Protein backbone atom coordinates (compact mmCIF):
# COMPACT_ATOMS: atom_id res chain seq x y z
CA UNK A 1 0.00 0.00 0.00
CA UNK A 2 2.67 2.41 1.10
CA UNK A 3 4.94 1.49 -1.81
CA UNK A 4 2.30 1.92 -4.52
CA UNK A 5 1.36 5.25 -2.99
CA UNK A 6 4.91 6.46 -3.26
CA UNK A 7 5.06 5.26 -6.84
CA UNK A 8 1.91 7.24 -7.64
CA UNK A 9 3.40 10.37 -6.06
CA UNK A 10 6.56 10.06 -8.07
CA UNK A 11 4.62 9.40 -11.25
CA UNK A 12 2.73 12.67 -10.82
CA UNK A 13 5.97 14.55 -10.21
CA UNK A 14 7.58 12.90 -13.23
CA UNK A 15 4.64 13.94 -15.40
CA UNK A 16 4.88 17.54 -14.18
CA UNK A 17 8.59 17.61 -14.90
CA UNK A 18 7.94 16.15 -18.35
CA UNK A 19 5.38 18.90 -18.93
CA UNK A 20 7.88 21.56 -17.80
CA UNK A 21 10.81 20.24 -19.78
CA UNK A 22 9.34 18.85 -23.01
CA UNK A 23 9.08 22.28 -24.71
CA UNK A 24 12.59 23.20 -23.59
CA UNK A 25 14.03 19.93 -24.88
CA UNK A 26 12.28 20.40 -28.20
CA UNK A 27 13.65 23.92 -28.42
CA UNK A 28 17.17 22.64 -27.78
CA UNK A 29 16.88 19.72 -30.20
CA UNK A 30 15.70 21.94 -33.03
CA UNK A 31 18.60 24.33 -32.52
CA UNK A 32 20.68 21.54 -34.11
CA UNK A 33 18.28 21.11 -37.01
CA UNK A 34 19.74 21.41 -40.52
CA UNK A 35 16.48 22.75 -41.96
CA UNK A 36 14.94 26.04 -40.92
CA UNK A 37 11.72 24.54 -39.58
CA UNK A 38 11.12 24.14 -35.87
CA UNK A 39 8.89 21.10 -36.25
CA UNK A 40 10.39 19.08 -39.12
CA UNK A 41 13.73 17.40 -38.51
CA UNK A 42 16.18 17.60 -41.43
CA UNK A 43 19.35 16.24 -39.86
CA UNK A 44 22.04 17.42 -37.47
CA UNK A 45 23.90 20.67 -38.05
CA UNK A 46 25.58 23.46 -36.13
CA UNK A 47 24.82 26.01 -38.83
CA UNK A 48 22.48 28.09 -36.67
CA UNK A 49 25.16 28.52 -34.03
CA UNK A 50 27.55 29.81 -36.66
CA UNK A 51 24.98 32.23 -38.06
CA UNK A 52 24.03 33.37 -34.59
CA UNK A 53 27.38 35.00 -33.96
CA UNK A 54 27.09 37.02 -37.14
CA UNK A 55 23.57 38.21 -36.40
CA UNK A 56 23.96 41.85 -35.33
CA UNK A 57 20.40 42.16 -34.02
CA UNK A 58 20.53 39.13 -31.74
CA UNK A 59 24.06 39.74 -30.47
CA UNK A 60 23.25 43.39 -29.79
CA UNK A 61 20.13 42.46 -27.81
CA UNK A 62 21.98 39.79 -25.82
CA UNK A 63 24.56 42.45 -25.01
CA UNK A 64 21.88 44.97 -23.99
CA UNK A 65 20.13 42.37 -21.81
CA UNK A 66 23.34 41.44 -20.02
CA UNK A 67 24.46 45.05 -19.50
CA UNK A 68 21.07 46.19 -18.22
CA UNK A 69 20.76 43.18 -15.93
CA UNK A 70 24.25 43.54 -14.46
CA UNK A 71 24.01 47.30 -13.98
CA UNK A 72 20.48 47.16 -12.57
CA UNK A 73 21.41 44.31 -10.22
CA UNK A 74 24.53 46.07 -8.97
CA UNK A 75 22.78 49.39 -8.36
CA UNK A 76 19.65 47.78 -6.92
CA UNK A 77 21.69 45.60 -4.55
CA UNK A 78 23.59 48.54 -3.10
CA UNK A 79 20.57 50.85 -2.96
CA UNK A 80 18.28 48.11 -1.65
CA UNK A 81 20.70 47.13 1.11
CA UNK A 82 21.01 50.71 2.31
CA UNK A 83 17.26 51.18 2.06
CA UNK A 84 16.63 47.99 4.05
CA UNK A 85 19.01 49.16 6.78
CA UNK A 86 17.30 52.55 6.79
CA UNK A 87 13.86 50.94 7.04
CA UNK A 88 15.09 48.72 9.86
CA UNK A 89 16.25 51.72 11.87
CA UNK A 90 13.00 53.62 11.43
CA UNK A 91 10.08 54.02 13.76
CA UNK A 92 7.57 51.29 13.18
CA UNK A 93 4.71 53.38 11.86
CA UNK A 94 6.79 55.15 9.23
CA UNK A 95 8.44 51.90 8.24
CA UNK A 96 5.16 50.07 7.73
CA UNK A 97 3.81 52.72 5.38
CA UNK A 98 7.07 52.84 3.39
CA UNK A 99 7.15 49.05 3.12
CA UNK A 100 3.64 49.16 1.69
CA UNK A 101 4.79 51.55 -1.04
CA UNK A 102 7.83 49.35 -1.58
CA UNK A 103 5.52 46.37 -2.19
CA UNK A 104 3.55 48.12 -4.94
CA UNK A 105 5.80 47.08 -7.85
CA UNK A 106 5.79 43.47 -6.66
CA UNK A 107 2.02 43.29 -6.26
CA UNK A 108 1.12 45.16 -9.40
CA UNK A 109 0.82 43.38 -12.70
CA UNK A 110 3.94 43.98 -14.80
CA UNK A 111 1.92 45.67 -17.50
CA UNK A 112 0.59 48.25 -15.02
CA UNK A 113 4.12 49.04 -13.83
CA UNK A 114 5.33 49.26 -17.41
CA UNK A 115 2.49 51.45 -18.61
CA UNK A 116 2.68 53.83 -15.65
CA UNK A 117 6.46 54.23 -16.03
CA UNK A 118 6.05 54.81 -19.75
CA UNK A 119 3.45 57.54 -19.16
CA UNK A 120 5.63 59.10 -16.48
CA UNK A 121 8.73 59.18 -18.70
CA UNK A 122 6.83 60.67 -21.63
CA UNK A 123 5.26 63.34 -19.42
CA UNK A 124 8.65 64.11 -17.91
CA UNK A 125 10.26 64.40 -21.34
CA UNK A 126 7.55 66.83 -22.46
CA UNK A 127 8.09 68.96 -19.37
CA UNK A 128 11.83 68.73 -19.84
CA UNK A 129 11.51 69.77 -23.48
CA UNK A 130 9.76 73.01 -22.65
CA UNK A 131 12.09 73.70 -19.72
CA UNK A 132 15.21 73.12 -21.82
CA UNK A 133 13.80 75.19 -24.66
CA UNK A 134 13.11 78.05 -22.28
CA UNK A 135 16.54 77.79 -20.65
CA UNK A 136 18.32 77.66 -24.01
CA UNK A 137 16.42 80.73 -25.18
CA UNK A 138 17.39 82.96 -22.22
CA UNK A 139 21.08 82.08 -22.05
CA UNK A 140 23.72 80.40 -24.17
CA UNK A 141 26.24 79.20 -21.61
CA UNK A 142 24.66 75.78 -21.14
CA UNK A 143 22.84 74.21 -24.05
CA UNK A 144 20.48 71.48 -22.88
CA UNK A 145 19.14 68.78 -25.19
CA UNK A 146 15.46 69.52 -25.77
CA UNK A 147 14.39 66.14 -27.12
CA UNK A 148 14.79 63.18 -24.81
CA UNK A 149 13.41 59.79 -25.79
CA UNK A 150 12.82 56.39 -24.26
CA UNK A 151 15.93 54.24 -24.51
CA UNK A 152 18.68 52.58 -22.55
CA UNK A 153 18.47 55.11 -19.70
CA UNK A 154 14.76 54.64 -19.08
CA UNK A 155 15.16 50.88 -19.44
CA UNK A 156 17.83 50.90 -16.75
CA UNK A 157 15.76 53.07 -14.40
CA UNK A 158 12.78 50.73 -14.82
CA UNK A 159 14.88 47.66 -14.08
CA UNK A 160 16.42 49.25 -10.98
CA UNK A 161 12.93 50.20 -9.79
CA UNK A 162 11.49 46.73 -10.00
CA UNK A 163 14.66 45.09 -8.63
CA UNK A 164 15.11 47.08 -5.41
CA UNK A 165 11.96 45.70 -3.69
CA UNK A 166 13.28 42.14 -4.09
CA UNK A 167 16.60 43.09 -2.51
CA UNK A 168 14.83 44.76 0.42
CA UNK A 169 12.58 41.72 0.75
CA UNK A 170 15.53 39.40 1.23
CA UNK A 171 17.78 41.73 3.28
CA UNK A 172 15.05 42.89 5.68
CA UNK A 173 14.51 39.54 7.48
CA UNK A 174 18.26 39.08 7.94
CA UNK A 175 18.44 42.44 9.69
CA UNK A 176 15.58 41.53 11.98
CA UNK A 177 17.25 38.22 12.84
CA UNK A 178 20.45 40.03 13.79
CA UNK A 179 21.19 40.55 17.48
CA UNK A 180 20.52 44.24 18.09
CA UNK A 181 23.19 44.42 20.77
CA UNK A 182 25.91 43.60 18.26
CA UNK A 183 26.03 47.17 16.93
CA UNK A 184 26.11 48.65 20.42
CA UNK A 185 28.78 46.18 21.46
CA UNK A 186 30.93 47.10 18.47
CA UNK A 187 30.59 50.78 19.28
CA UNK A 188 31.35 50.22 22.95
CA UNK A 189 34.52 48.49 21.86
CA UNK A 190 35.54 51.60 19.98
CA UNK A 191 34.13 51.23 16.48
CA UNK A 192 32.84 54.30 14.73
CA UNK A 193 29.39 53.71 13.29
CA UNK A 194 30.91 53.34 9.84
CA UNK A 195 33.18 50.60 11.14
CA UNK A 196 30.28 48.98 12.97
CA UNK A 197 28.42 48.91 9.68
CA UNK A 198 31.27 47.40 7.65
CA UNK A 199 32.58 44.96 10.21
CA UNK A 200 29.44 43.87 12.04
CA UNK A 201 26.23 44.56 10.15
CA UNK A 202 27.40 43.72 6.64
CA UNK A 203 28.79 40.24 7.40
CA UNK A 204 25.58 39.42 9.28
CA UNK A 205 23.30 40.26 6.38
CA UNK A 206 25.54 39.04 3.58
CA UNK A 207 23.48 35.91 2.75
CA UNK A 208 20.40 38.12 2.36
CA UNK A 209 22.29 40.50 0.06
CA UNK A 210 23.53 37.64 -2.10
CA UNK A 211 20.13 36.02 -2.49
CA UNK A 212 18.56 39.43 -3.13
CA UNK A 213 21.08 40.12 -5.88
CA UNK A 214 20.42 36.72 -7.45
CA UNK A 215 16.67 37.30 -7.43
CA UNK A 216 17.13 40.76 -8.91
CA UNK A 217 19.34 39.40 -11.68
CA UNK A 218 16.85 36.65 -12.50
CA UNK A 219 14.02 39.17 -12.62
CA UNK A 220 16.00 41.44 -14.95
CA UNK A 221 17.01 38.67 -17.33
CA UNK A 222 13.50 37.25 -17.45
CA UNK A 223 11.61 40.52 -17.76
CA UNK A 224 9.84 41.29 -20.97
CA UNK A 225 6.73 43.34 -20.24
CA UNK A 226 8.27 46.25 -18.33
CA UNK A 227 11.21 46.48 -20.75
CA UNK A 228 8.81 46.46 -23.66
CA UNK A 229 7.03 49.58 -22.40
CA UNK A 230 10.08 51.51 -21.22
CA UNK A 231 12.83 50.79 -23.75
CA UNK A 232 11.31 52.66 -26.67
CA UNK A 233 12.65 51.76 -30.09
CA UNK A 234 16.34 52.51 -29.63
CA UNK A 235 17.18 49.75 -27.14
CA UNK A 236 16.06 46.16 -27.41
CA UNK A 237 16.54 43.33 -24.93
CA UNK A 238 16.66 39.72 -26.08
CA UNK A 239 13.09 39.15 -24.93
CA UNK A 240 11.92 42.11 -27.01
CA UNK A 241 13.79 40.82 -30.05
CA UNK A 242 12.21 37.40 -29.64
CA UNK A 243 8.79 38.97 -29.26
CA UNK A 244 9.31 40.94 -32.45
CA UNK A 245 10.32 37.74 -34.24
CA UNK A 246 7.35 35.69 -33.07
CA UNK A 247 5.12 38.08 -34.98
CA UNK A 248 6.77 36.92 -38.20
CA UNK A 249 9.07 33.90 -38.23
CA UNK A 250 11.34 32.79 -35.46
CA UNK A 251 14.75 31.87 -36.79
CA UNK A 252 16.34 28.74 -35.26
CA UNK A 253 19.16 31.12 -34.31
CA UNK A 254 16.93 32.02 -31.40
CA UNK A 255 16.81 28.34 -30.43
CA UNK A 256 20.59 28.36 -30.56
CA UNK A 257 21.02 31.43 -28.39
CA UNK A 258 18.55 30.14 -25.82
CA UNK A 259 20.29 26.76 -25.76
CA UNK A 260 23.57 28.51 -25.00
CA UNK A 261 22.00 30.61 -22.23
CA UNK A 262 20.29 27.54 -20.79
CA UNK A 263 23.55 25.60 -20.79
CA UNK A 264 25.29 28.49 -19.02
CA UNK A 265 22.62 28.60 -16.29
CA UNK A 266 22.71 24.83 -15.94
CA UNK A 267 26.47 24.90 -15.47
CA UNK A 268 26.18 27.68 -12.89
CA UNK A 269 23.51 25.80 -10.94
CA UNK A 270 25.51 22.58 -10.96
CA UNK A 271 28.55 24.42 -9.62
CA UNK A 272 26.53 26.13 -6.89
CA UNK A 273 24.84 22.89 -5.87
CA UNK A 274 28.01 20.85 -5.79
CA UNK A 275 29.66 23.52 -3.66
CA UNK A 276 26.71 23.65 -1.29
CA UNK A 277 26.60 19.89 -0.96
CA UNK A 278 30.32 19.84 -0.25
CA UNK A 279 30.00 22.54 2.39
CA UNK A 280 27.16 20.68 4.05
CA UNK A 281 29.16 17.50 4.06
CA UNK A 282 32.11 19.28 5.62
CA UNK A 283 29.85 20.85 8.23
CA UNK A 284 28.38 17.44 9.03
CA UNK A 285 31.88 15.95 9.36
CA UNK A 286 32.94 18.75 11.68
CA UNK A 287 29.92 18.10 13.83
CA UNK A 288 30.83 14.44 14.12
CA UNK A 289 34.43 15.26 14.95
CA UNK A 290 33.33 17.59 17.70
Amino acid at each position, binding site marked *: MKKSNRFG*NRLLMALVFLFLYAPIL*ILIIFSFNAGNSSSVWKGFSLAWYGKLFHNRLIMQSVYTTLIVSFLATAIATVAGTFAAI*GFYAMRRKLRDSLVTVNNIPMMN*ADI*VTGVSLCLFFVAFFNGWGSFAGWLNSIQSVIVLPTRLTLGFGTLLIAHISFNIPYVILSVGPKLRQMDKNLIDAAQDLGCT*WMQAFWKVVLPEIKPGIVSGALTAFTMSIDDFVISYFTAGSSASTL*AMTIYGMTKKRVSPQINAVSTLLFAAVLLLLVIINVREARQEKRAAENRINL
Partner: protein
Amino acid sequence: MKNKLSRLAVPYVVWMALFVVAPIIMMVIYAFSASNGGFTLNNFVKMGAYAEVFIRSFKLALIATAICLLVGYPVSYFMSKEGPRFQRMAMVLIMLPMWMNFLLRTYSWMTILENNGLLNQLFQKIGLIALYNRMTGADLSYFPMMNTQGAVVLGMVYNYLPFMILPIYSVIIKLDGSLIEAARDLGAGSATVFRRVILPLSLPGVLSGITMVFVPAVSTFAISQMLGGGTELLLGDLIEQQFMGGAYNPQLGAAISLVMMVIVVVCMLVMNRFGEGEEQAVML
Protein backbone atom coordinates in the same frame (compact mmCIF):
# COMPACT_ATOMS: atom_id res chain seq x y z
CA MET B 1 23.09 55.15 16.01
CA LYS B 2 19.70 53.89 14.97
CA ASN B 3 18.45 57.31 13.93
CA LYS B 4 21.56 57.96 11.93
CA LEU B 5 21.08 54.67 10.13
CA SER B 6 17.52 55.54 9.13
CA ARG B 7 18.94 58.31 6.95
CA LEU B 8 20.29 55.59 4.66
CA ALA B 9 16.74 55.08 3.39
CA VAL B 10 16.32 58.68 2.25
CA PRO B 11 17.67 58.20 -1.30
CA TYR B 12 15.38 55.25 -1.86
CA VAL B 13 12.36 57.08 -0.48
CA VAL B 14 13.02 59.84 -3.01
CA TRP B 15 13.46 57.20 -5.71
CA MET B 16 10.16 55.55 -4.78
CA ALA B 17 8.36 58.89 -4.86
CA LEU B 18 9.73 59.50 -8.36
CA PHE B 19 9.52 56.09 -9.98
CA VAL B 20 6.80 54.26 -8.08
CA VAL B 21 4.30 56.81 -6.77
CA ALA B 22 4.56 59.51 -9.45
CA PRO B 23 4.03 57.05 -12.37
CA ILE B 24 0.89 55.69 -10.75
CA ILE B 25 -0.41 59.22 -10.17
CA MET B 26 0.43 59.91 -13.81
CA MET B 27 -1.61 56.88 -14.84
CA VAL B 28 -4.60 58.07 -12.79
CA ILE B 29 -4.36 61.55 -14.36
CA TYR B 30 -4.24 60.05 -17.85
CA ALA B 31 -7.19 57.78 -17.09
CA PHE B 32 -9.33 60.82 -16.30
CA SER B 33 -8.23 63.06 -19.15
CA ALA B 34 -9.36 63.51 -22.73
CA SER B 35 -6.86 63.53 -25.58
CA ASN B 36 -6.82 67.34 -25.48
CA GLY B 37 -6.00 67.32 -21.77
CA GLY B 38 -9.36 68.22 -20.19
CA PHE B 39 -11.08 66.21 -17.47
CA THR B 40 -13.40 63.46 -18.65
CA LEU B 41 -14.98 60.20 -17.57
CA ASN B 42 -15.35 59.17 -21.17
CA ASN B 43 -12.51 56.64 -21.00
CA PHE B 44 -14.40 54.61 -18.45
CA VAL B 45 -17.62 54.81 -20.45
CA LYS B 46 -15.81 53.55 -23.54
CA MET B 47 -14.61 50.56 -21.58
CA GLY B 48 -18.15 49.15 -21.55
CA ALA B 49 -17.56 48.03 -25.13
CA TYR B 50 -14.80 45.78 -23.87
CA ALA B 51 -16.78 44.05 -21.11
CA GLU B 52 -16.38 40.82 -23.07
CA VAL B 53 -12.59 41.11 -22.90
CA PHE B 54 -12.70 41.72 -19.15
CA ILE B 55 -14.87 38.64 -18.63
CA ARG B 56 -12.72 36.47 -20.89
CA SER B 57 -9.49 37.58 -19.16
CA PHE B 58 -10.79 36.86 -15.70
CA LYS B 59 -12.34 33.57 -16.81
CA LEU B 60 -9.16 32.24 -18.45
CA ALA B 61 -6.95 33.46 -15.60
CA LEU B 62 -9.23 31.82 -13.04
CA ILE B 63 -9.23 28.51 -14.93
CA ALA B 64 -5.44 28.62 -15.24
CA THR B 65 -5.06 29.44 -11.53
CA ALA B 66 -7.38 26.59 -10.57
CA ILE B 67 -5.44 24.10 -12.70
CA CYS B 68 -2.14 25.34 -11.26
CA LEU B 69 -3.50 24.87 -7.75
CA LEU B 70 -4.89 21.40 -8.49
CA VAL B 71 -1.57 20.26 -9.95
CA GLY B 72 0.79 22.38 -7.86
CA TYR B 73 -0.53 21.52 -4.42
CA PRO B 74 -0.12 17.73 -4.69
CA VAL B 75 3.30 18.17 -6.28
CA SER B 76 4.49 20.43 -3.45
CA TYR B 77 3.03 18.09 -0.86
CA PHE B 78 4.56 14.94 -2.35
CA MET B 79 7.88 16.72 -2.80
CA SER B 80 8.01 17.63 0.88
CA LYS B 81 7.69 13.94 1.78
CA GLU B 82 10.79 12.91 -0.18
CA GLY B 83 14.37 12.81 1.06
CA PRO B 84 16.51 15.98 1.21
CA ARG B 85 18.57 15.10 -1.86
CA PHE B 86 15.44 14.49 -3.95
CA GLN B 87 13.95 17.75 -2.69
CA ARG B 88 16.99 19.79 -3.60
CA MET B 89 17.06 18.24 -7.05
CA ALA B 90 13.33 18.83 -7.56
CA MET B 91 13.63 22.47 -6.48
CA VAL B 92 16.40 23.07 -9.00
CA LEU B 93 14.35 21.37 -11.71
CA ILE B 94 11.35 23.57 -10.97
CA MET B 95 13.36 26.80 -10.90
CA LEU B 96 15.43 26.04 -13.97
CA PRO B 97 12.79 26.67 -16.66
CA MET B 98 12.27 30.16 -15.23
CA TRP B 99 15.76 30.99 -16.42
CA MET B 100 14.77 30.44 -20.00
CA ASN B 101 12.81 33.38 -21.28
CA PHE B 102 9.07 32.72 -21.10
CA LEU B 103 8.57 33.91 -24.67
CA LEU B 104 10.86 31.16 -25.89
CA ARG B 105 9.08 28.51 -23.90
CA THR B 106 5.74 29.77 -25.19
CA TYR B 107 7.11 29.82 -28.71
CA SER B 108 8.11 26.20 -28.27
CA TRP B 109 4.48 25.39 -27.48
CA MET B 110 3.54 27.00 -30.77
CA THR B 111 5.71 24.50 -32.63
CA ILE B 112 4.15 21.68 -30.63
CA LEU B 113 0.53 22.68 -31.08
CA GLU B 114 0.60 23.88 -34.69
CA ASN B 115 -1.61 22.21 -37.28
CA ASN B 116 1.44 20.49 -38.74
CA GLY B 117 3.27 20.66 -35.43
CA LEU B 118 4.87 17.91 -33.41
CA LEU B 119 1.77 16.80 -31.54
CA ASN B 120 -0.32 16.49 -34.69
CA GLN B 121 2.56 14.65 -36.39
CA LEU B 122 2.56 12.25 -33.46
CA PHE B 123 -1.22 11.79 -33.60
CA GLN B 124 -0.96 11.03 -37.29
CA LYS B 125 1.81 8.47 -36.77
CA ILE B 126 -0.05 6.55 -34.12
CA GLY B 127 -3.25 6.69 -36.14
CA LEU B 128 -5.23 8.73 -33.67
CA ILE B 129 -6.53 11.13 -36.29
CA ALA B 130 -7.60 8.30 -38.60
CA LEU B 131 -9.31 6.61 -35.67
CA TYR B 132 -11.11 9.83 -34.77
CA ASN B 133 -12.22 10.30 -38.38
CA ARG B 134 -13.55 6.77 -38.57
CA MET B 135 -15.41 7.08 -35.30
CA THR B 136 -17.04 10.43 -35.91
CA GLY B 137 -17.16 10.40 -39.68
CA ALA B 138 -15.22 13.66 -39.74
CA ASP B 139 -12.50 14.33 -42.26
CA LEU B 140 -9.71 15.92 -40.30
CA SER B 141 -6.09 15.90 -41.32
CA TYR B 142 -5.07 17.48 -38.00
CA PHE B 143 -6.59 18.52 -34.67
CA PRO B 144 -6.84 22.31 -34.51
CA MET B 145 -5.21 23.22 -31.21
CA MET B 146 -3.58 26.58 -31.84
CA ASN B 147 -5.52 29.83 -31.55
CA THR B 148 -7.97 28.45 -29.02
CA GLN B 149 -8.75 29.44 -25.46
CA GLY B 150 -7.45 26.03 -24.40
CA ALA B 151 -4.04 26.83 -25.85
CA VAL B 152 -3.96 30.16 -24.01
CA VAL B 153 -4.83 28.47 -20.71
CA LEU B 154 -2.17 25.84 -21.38
CA GLY B 155 0.39 28.59 -21.93
CA MET B 156 -0.59 30.29 -18.68
CA VAL B 157 -0.44 27.03 -16.69
CA TYR B 158 2.88 26.16 -18.24
CA ASN B 159 4.48 29.52 -17.49
CA TYR B 160 3.09 30.13 -14.01
CA LEU B 161 2.96 26.64 -12.47
CA PRO B 162 6.33 27.11 -10.69
CA PHE B 163 4.93 30.25 -9.04
CA MET B 164 2.24 28.07 -7.47
CA ILE B 165 4.54 25.22 -6.43
CA LEU B 166 7.29 27.31 -4.82
CA PRO B 167 5.30 29.21 -2.15
CA ILE B 168 3.17 26.19 -1.22
CA TYR B 169 6.25 23.98 -0.95
CA SER B 170 8.15 26.49 1.16
CA VAL B 171 5.24 26.69 3.63
CA ILE B 172 4.67 22.92 3.83
CA ILE B 173 8.36 22.21 4.36
CA LYS B 174 8.38 24.51 7.41
CA LEU B 175 5.36 22.85 9.04
CA ASP B 176 6.00 21.74 12.58
CA GLY B 177 6.27 17.94 12.38
CA SER B 178 5.25 17.57 16.01
CA LEU B 179 1.80 18.95 15.19
CA ILE B 180 1.27 16.11 12.74
CA GLU B 181 2.55 13.58 15.26
CA ALA B 182 0.26 15.03 17.92
CA ALA B 183 -2.72 14.73 15.59
CA ARG B 184 -1.83 11.11 14.89
CA ASP B 185 -1.37 10.38 18.58
CA LEU B 186 -4.82 11.79 19.20
CA GLY B 187 -6.20 9.27 16.74
CA ALA B 188 -6.50 11.13 13.45
CA GLY B 189 -6.07 9.11 10.25
CA SER B 190 -3.96 10.29 7.32
CA ALA B 191 -6.93 11.97 5.64
CA THR B 192 -7.95 13.79 8.80
CA VAL B 193 -4.41 14.91 9.51
CA PHE B 194 -4.22 16.35 6.03
CA ARG B 195 -7.61 18.02 6.18
CA ARG B 196 -7.44 19.38 9.74
CA VAL B 197 -3.72 20.12 10.16
CA ILE B 198 -1.68 20.29 6.97
CA LEU B 199 -4.21 21.98 4.71
CA PRO B 200 -5.13 24.88 7.04
CA LEU B 201 -1.50 25.46 7.96
CA SER B 202 -0.41 25.59 4.33
CA LEU B 203 -3.10 28.11 3.40
CA PRO B 204 -0.77 31.15 3.47
CA GLY B 205 1.35 29.46 0.81
CA VAL B 206 -1.74 28.65 -1.23
CA LEU B 207 -2.92 32.27 -1.07
CA SER B 208 0.41 33.69 -2.16
CA GLY B 209 0.59 31.06 -4.91
CA ILE B 210 -2.85 32.07 -6.16
CA THR B 211 -1.83 35.74 -6.32
CA MET B 212 1.46 34.95 -8.00
CA VAL B 213 -0.33 32.99 -10.73
CA PHE B 214 -3.49 35.01 -11.12
CA VAL B 215 -1.98 38.50 -11.43
CA PRO B 216 0.38 37.74 -14.33
CA ALA B 217 -2.21 35.46 -15.97
CA VAL B 218 -4.95 38.07 -16.02
CA SER B 219 -2.64 40.75 -17.43
CA THR B 220 -0.66 38.75 -19.98
CA PHE B 221 -0.55 39.80 -23.59
CA ALA B 222 2.33 37.84 -25.05
CA ILE B 223 0.89 34.40 -24.28
CA SER B 224 -2.52 35.21 -25.69
CA GLN B 225 -1.00 36.75 -28.80
CA MET B 226 1.26 33.79 -29.45
CA LEU B 227 -1.02 30.89 -28.56
CA GLY B 228 -4.37 32.60 -29.11
CA GLY B 229 -3.30 34.02 -32.45
CA GLY B 230 -4.86 37.40 -31.68
CA THR B 231 -8.34 35.90 -31.81
CA GLU B 232 -8.67 35.60 -28.04
CA LEU B 233 -8.11 39.21 -27.04
CA LEU B 234 -7.25 39.62 -23.34
CA LEU B 235 -6.96 42.68 -21.11
CA GLY B 236 -3.21 42.79 -21.61
CA ASP B 237 -3.64 42.82 -25.39
CA LEU B 238 -6.17 45.61 -25.09
CA ILE B 239 -3.80 47.75 -23.03
CA GLU B 240 -0.86 46.97 -25.28
CA GLN B 241 -2.83 48.01 -28.36
CA GLN B 242 -3.61 51.40 -26.81
CA PHE B 243 0.10 52.11 -26.34
CA MET B 244 1.99 50.23 -29.04
CA GLY B 245 -0.56 49.06 -31.55
CA GLY B 246 -2.63 50.75 -34.20
CA ALA B 247 -5.38 51.79 -31.77
CA TYR B 248 -3.17 54.45 -30.19
CA ASN B 249 -5.09 55.87 -27.22
CA PRO B 250 -2.95 56.08 -24.06
CA GLN B 251 -5.79 57.68 -22.07
CA LEU B 252 -8.03 54.67 -22.63
CA GLY B 253 -5.07 52.34 -21.99
CA ALA B 254 -4.38 54.09 -18.68
CA ALA B 255 -8.04 53.81 -17.71
CA ILE B 256 -8.12 50.07 -18.45
CA SER B 257 -4.87 49.56 -16.52
CA LEU B 258 -6.30 51.50 -13.59
CA VAL B 259 -9.50 49.46 -13.49
CA MET B 260 -7.54 46.23 -13.74
CA MET B 261 -5.21 47.33 -10.96
CA VAL B 262 -8.13 48.25 -8.69
CA ILE B 263 -9.92 44.93 -9.30
CA VAL B 264 -6.74 42.94 -8.61
CA VAL B 265 -5.93 44.91 -5.45
CA VAL B 266 -9.48 44.50 -4.13
CA CYS B 267 -9.39 40.74 -4.83
CA MET B 268 -6.07 40.46 -3.04
CA LEU B 269 -7.20 42.47 -0.02
CA VAL B 270 -10.31 40.33 0.35
CA MET B 271 -8.27 37.16 0.01
CA ASN B 272 -5.61 38.27 2.49
CA ARG B 273 -8.26 39.25 5.03
CA PHE B 274 -9.67 35.76 4.62
CA GLY B 275 -6.17 34.28 4.99
CA GLU B 276 -5.36 36.31 8.09
CA GLY B 277 -8.50 35.03 9.76
CA GLU B 278 -7.37 31.48 9.05
CA GLU B 279 -3.93 32.10 10.43
CA GLN B 280 -5.31 33.54 13.63
CA ALA B 281 -7.71 30.63 13.98
CA VAL B 282 -4.78 28.28 13.70
CA MET B 283 -2.80 30.22 16.29
CA LEU B 284 -5.68 30.11 18.76
